[in-house]
């Protein structure tokens, strides 16, 4: 479904991502792991058009999507979340989720100014859908609370729910459990599994090995911007190169 074809990104003299290629199969949870500074987030930023790709191409279902900006990719069915939480704290929980439906909404200024009926009905319909999404993580009761009053763990989940609003075919999750406690991590892992049940493909960038090994269908390991290994979780756990790279940075799987 997603094909990364020998992409390279340089910052100054350093190659953050170096001639990297891999494929993501439809319906998979495809994890990308690697030590700190391996180029994982750079990769996500390249796929979503935040950084310009120096060399190489990225294909989605055969169509070239290299260097298309994030907002346009949403219309192609790709959505992402962020390593450092990006939630609009000035909005309520419900409004944040409603943002996810933005691409389906009528935002004609003239109609909005005069409170046109079509707009009100449109809004009502999406509110119901947003509440349904919230009920997936049991947040429908606090839908009208300001996001700034909620805990980090809840907001991390909210970010994923918001991405779902865009009805994507592919979601890129950039460290969705970073900074969460074990209980919250388990909840997010659970959420990701239910998302997959909806037949959404997931690219997961994560440090939490326990979770990665639990929920991934396929794993690509990168180190210093290059592909170190790929395979199923079992294959990765037993891969000598991977063990060496991780022991070097002090993480034990």
């Amino acid at each position: 479904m997603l094909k990364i074809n020998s992409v390279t990104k340089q910052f100054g003299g350093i190659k953050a991502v170096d001639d990297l290629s891999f494929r993501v199969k439809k319906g998979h949870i495809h994890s990308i792991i690697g030590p700190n500074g391996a180029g994982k987030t750079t990769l996500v930023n390249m796929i979503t058009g935040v950084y310009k790709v120096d060399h190489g191409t990225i294909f989605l279902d055969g169509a070239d999507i290299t260097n298309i900006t994030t907002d346009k990719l949403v219309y192609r069915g790709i959505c992402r979340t962020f390593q450092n939480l990006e939630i609009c704290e000035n909005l309520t929980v419900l409004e944040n989720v409603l943002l996810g439906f933005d691409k389906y909404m009528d935002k004609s200024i003239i109609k909005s100014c005069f409170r046109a009926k079509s707009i009100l009905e449109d809004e009502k319909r999406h509110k119901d859908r947003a509440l349904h999404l919230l009920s997936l993580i049991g947040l429908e009761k606090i839908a009208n609370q300001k996001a700034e009053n909620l805990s980090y763990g809840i907001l991390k989940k909210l970010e994923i729910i918001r991405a779902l609003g865009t009805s994507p075919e592919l979601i890129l999750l950039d460290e969705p459990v970073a900074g969460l406690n074990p209980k919250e991590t388990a909840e997010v892992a659970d959420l990701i599994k239910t998302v997959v049940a909806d037949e959404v493909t997931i690219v997961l960038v994560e440090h939490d090995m326990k979770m990665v090994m639990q929920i991934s269908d396929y794993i690509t390991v990168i180190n210093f911007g290059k592909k170190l290994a790929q395979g199923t979780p079992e294959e990765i756990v037993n891969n000598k190169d991977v063990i060496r790279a991780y022991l070097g940075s002090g993480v034990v799987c």
Partner: protein
Amino acid sequence: MFMGYAGQVSLGHGAFAGLGGYIAVILSSNYELSPLFSIFISVITMAILAFIISKPILRLKGHYLAMATLGVGVIISIFLNAEDELTGGSDGMSVDSFSIFGYEFTDNLQWYILCAVLLVFTIWMFTNLVDSPFGRVLKSIQGSEKAANSVGINVSHYKSIVFVISVVIATISGSLYAFFSGFISPAEASFSHSIELVVMVVLGGLGRIYGAIIGAVILTILPQLLTSFEDYQTLIYGAIIIFIMIFMPKGIASLFNDMKRRLLAKDK
């Protein structure tokens, strides 16, 4: 509005209002177009102008944006001063009376009614706009541009739209003011006037429509009250701004909100 909902600050809006006013006045006086039609053309021209400059200017943020808008404003004001054949230079020019479909607005009462109707209408449209999905997009841009971008919102496009809308409103008010006072001079487009507008918004509280109106009322009444201390007018004016920025930076409207919240809390 430009400032509140997109988290931006413009120090050039006085100049936009002034230039818009001039265009309308020149069209109606020199080319004998009806005032309403002149304002209409002025609005279109200013909207196009705003759209053109919005692209490069809105790529800037914070101080840089403030300075760039300020620069545009000062250039407009110098232009109005310099082109005296067209604008009457620093002496300004007088304006014909205002009429809509042959009905002339002559005395103050008629003006009050017209402005009140317009104001109520504008507030109504704004509240609707802010409550709509469109308004939510603007708020989300203020909250987190990255988040807005990640759900498919073209942030710079929306910023441009807001900028254009705010310039259009400035143009309408600038034109009406010129027709009302029967006179227009480059002072309307000066840096100080732009700042006055910013202060109005901040005084009332950023991102609140009612805030801007409260601010406008205070800033308009204040000088009238202060005329008895004529010499001290500027001094007191500055002191009040400093006071408000230090002690209630969220603006006066936030005081009312606080009060409302406290009252509600008591009810519970």
